[in-house]
């Protein structure tokens, strides 16, 4: 089934202070489509993890916040785009416990568990794009 975009907004995230306003924006959209509190919390936590990764490894970038629909289900899609160094081995980065930074290494695999759909595309030297969708009831 195709995914329709109902609404789209872009937010640049280039410094740490952009994180909280960005999270608030995601929350606004999630509230607007009537997403429940638990799913909202999962989505915003996932967004927070990804945006932190983007700042830390990709030196910031752009995030697209979209309201999407598939059939009768509405959801929020977030696309994180950076022009950072890229990830040489994506499957390794998706493993629980793996981290090149000094974090806990839950970033990507933990984040994937919080959302309904997760996709990562990365080209070394060009950048990384992470796309997540959280369905309203998913």
């Amino acid at each position: 089934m195709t995914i329709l975009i109902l609404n789209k907004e872009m937010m640049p995230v280039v410094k740490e202070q952009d994180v909280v306003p960005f999270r608030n924006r995601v929350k606004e959209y999630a509230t607007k489509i009537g997403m429940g509190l638990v799913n909202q919390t999962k989505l915003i936590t996932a967004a927070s993890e990804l945006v932190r990764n983007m700042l830390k490894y990709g030196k910031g970038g752009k995030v697209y916040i979209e309201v999407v629909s598939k059939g009768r289900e509405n959801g929020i899609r977030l696309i994180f785009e950076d022009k950072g160094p890229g990830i040489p081995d994506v499957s390794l980065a998706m493993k629980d416990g793996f981290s090149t930074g000094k974090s806990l290494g839950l970033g990507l695999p933990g984040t994937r568990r919080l959302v309904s759909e997760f996709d990562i595309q990365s080209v070394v030297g060009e950048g990384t794009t992470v796309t997540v969708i959280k369905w309203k009831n998913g």
Partner: protein
Amino acid sequence: MEKIPILRMGPFLLVTIQVDLYDRLAENLEADLVQMVSKTGAMGVLIDISAVSIIDSFMGRIIGNIASMSKIMDAETVVVGMQPAVAITLIELGLPLKGVQCALNVERGMDLLRAKIALNEGTPDDYFDTE
């Protein structure tokens, strides 16, 4: 510069986090709190997170750090008031906050702190208390 206030309540320090923390604020809190433990000789730290709607891995690490730092400074830490949605998200994210004591609310958190401190000290007061 915003700051998270740290209140002194008898032998304890009380921190109520009312805003969503961004990184610098959280790191400052960590440093301030350890300083305060050292300065006041507090025996316990109570962190109220009932107004916090998001805990990601960074925030989780800060909370864990505060607990371990306080511990080696001879103070116990109890985190109280976690929202149910936050608890669900933390576990799914894979962040069980190991080594951090939690209580449902401030009252139970205080009881837990008192119990832990009494246990650590085995104070004479408790010893001869025969009620």
